[in-house]
């Protein structure tokens, strides 16, 4: 059955940094890393949204501003060998997993230097060498594909895991159900992270499903489901570590529901008139970064200078990456014919007679 971890970071602080038998001490460095990573994610997305406002790149931007604690808490300790199966809103997972900023911005700009060679829409970013699946827009698609990668990890007997990120709306799709059931019956080394931000575009979670906690849906598949405060990065981190460790050690999958909120519209063009301003204000008051700042302050781990240093250094990195992306050339038109098959259709188009690929 689903249990709830709803410990507020404030109390957490008083509880000596979660130093309880079942929760081994989280090092001060890790605590600071959790904060600084969230901060970088926020800076990156605010910057990207700004560039979008200035129409510096085409397409829509699906930001996770306000939700950073989930991606950071669940993604921060993943290995390069671990697979991330992201959704449209998980661009920051690239940063968290260590993708170079130049790659990320060339992706937003649809440049020839982008890992996807300018094909995928902004924020639909993958990175092969770090095992981030280049996502389709199709909801839950990567979670489904992820089950196959987890199955191979299991077959090969390694201890790598697959972490799939998606929203609460994704739980309504049949694809998601098939993935969850398959993960359960095959006991796959996988973690499903459902970022319940209460809205699927304009559709309230109340119209999405009858149950209040998405985590309870795991009951149908015979593996643990847990609901966690998605704005409490430490809570997310603890819950995610538990799930990841269980998956690595053959304990099977876990569904984590992180209750959180997106500050902005579905994409930059969505004024989000469908939600009450109070709701937004309440959630902004629960800003995961500000909360962690208070928490670290309480533990004497925070200083304004430190934050300023992270900010200015990262802004410089962003400046550099953005300049490179701006300067990079778009793909050549004819490149639209590339990467259809393992063989070259351009060759096919241009000299049909000579065409005869090998295998």
């Amino acid at each position, binding site marked *: 059955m689903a249990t709830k971890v709803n410990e507020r970071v404030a109390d957490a602080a008083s509880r000596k940094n979660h130093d309880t038998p079942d929760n081994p001490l989280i090092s001060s460095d890790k605590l600071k890393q959790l904060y600084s990573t969230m901060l970088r994610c926020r800076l990156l997305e605010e910057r990207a949204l700004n560039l979008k406002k200035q129409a510096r790149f085409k397409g829509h931007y699906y930001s996770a501003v306000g939700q950073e604690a989930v991606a950071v808490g669940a993604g921060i300790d993943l290995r390069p060998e671990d697979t991330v199966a992201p959704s449209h809103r998980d661009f920051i997972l690239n940063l968290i997993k260590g993708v170079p900023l130049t790659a990320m911005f060339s992706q937003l700009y649809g440049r020839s230097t982008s890992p996807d060679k300018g094909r995928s829409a902004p924020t639909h970013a993958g990175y092969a060498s770090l095992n981030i699946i280049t996502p389709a827009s199709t909801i839950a698609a990567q979670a489904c594909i992820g089950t196959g990668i987890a199955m191979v990890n299991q077959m090969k007997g390694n201890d790598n895991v697959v972490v799939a990120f998606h929203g609460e709306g994704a739980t309504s799709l049949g694809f998601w159900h098939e993935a969850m059931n398959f993960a359960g019956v095959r006991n796959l080394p996988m973690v499903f992270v459902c970022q319940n931000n209460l809205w699927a575009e304009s*559709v309230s979670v109340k119209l999405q499903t009858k149950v209040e906690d998405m985590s309870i849906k795991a009951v149908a598949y015979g593996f643990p489901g847990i609901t966690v405060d998605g704005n409490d990065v430490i809570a997310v981190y603890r819950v995610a570590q538990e799930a990841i460790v269980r998956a690595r050690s053959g304990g099977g999958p876990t569904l984590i529901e992180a209750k959180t909120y997106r500050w902005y519209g579905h994409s930059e063009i969505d004024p989000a008139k469908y939600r009450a301003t109070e709701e937004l204000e309440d959630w902004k008051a629960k800003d995961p970064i500000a909360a962690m700042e208070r928490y670290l302050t309480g533990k004497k781990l925070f200083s304004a200078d430190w934050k300023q240093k992270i900010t200015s250094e990262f802004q410089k990195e962003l400046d550099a990456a953005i300049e490179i992306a701006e300067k990079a050339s778009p793909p050549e038109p004819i490149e639209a014919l590339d990467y259809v098959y393992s063989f070259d259709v351009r060759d096919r188009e241009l000299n049909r007679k000579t065409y005869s690929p090998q295998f």
Partner: protein
Amino acid sequence: MSITYLEAINTALREEMDRDPNVFILGEDVGVMGGAFGATKGLIERFGADRVIDSPLAEGIIVSASIGAAMAGMRPVAEIQFVDFITPAMDAITQQAAKLRYRSGGSQSCPLTIRICYGGGTGGGLYHSQTNTTWFAHEPGLMVVAPATASDAKGMLKASIRQDDPVLYFEHKKLYRLPAVKEDVPEGVDNLADLFHCAIRRPGEDVTLVTYGYMLQLALQAAEKVSEENGASVEVIDLRVLNPLDHETILESVSRTGRLCIVQEDHRTLGIGSEIAATVAERAFDCLDAPIVRVAAPDVPAIPAAETLEHFYMPNVDKIVDALHRVLQY
């Protein structure tokens, strides 16, 4: 009074819902938000959340539930936000809606309308630009229509809702607010448009140019250009209906012009142009004075996001003009 393609859709829905209490709407974001593009704007306020239903994120059940509702006497209008995401409903549409009347020996049927947003050229990229009409134009039992004008957008949607068959109504997102297609649309609640025939949008003698949807705009410009350049007169046919196809109008036109050029936004292989070309090569062969030329997107998996790539992908006026010259000069 002149309205946009999008307003025509919205008006058709409002009129039909006013007229018939059995008409209701089911889909993602159709209610509070009034649709991703505003096609259902104002309808939830007018008809309430029981007739304008924000569905869960599940295209399969959007269509399946609509099929059941249609069987039970309603006239559901389901919305698929982007045809790129119609795959979860593939079974409901092709195996259930298309086959129910047939498998029940005519004793059960589902008069249902599915509004489907499709089309590229807006920078939407791989998953917000697809066409995918072939999957359904290939399925007997389904009617597939694709209005190219504001008048048809209204008249054909109203006719679809009243048609006793499952109708897939493809609306091109680039037409929604296109000034060029703003026009006075026929007034009158019962003013319906035909769902079975092509329309000749520009009469001509030298070559027949067949297309549909947004491409009609480019086709008309190309026709104009060619006639200016070398006085050739191009007959432009708006397909309007992709399934079942109106062969007769096309065959009759080709029998007069002796030349055929087909323009489709879809990629080449097995786009609707293939069926038209095959039919003409079979039934009007002796009328043909030149090869049948298809202007289509290249055979790649989808429309890439980058502007340079998308522009390379999309058919355009110049490509059509070139093709017309080739056919005419043959």
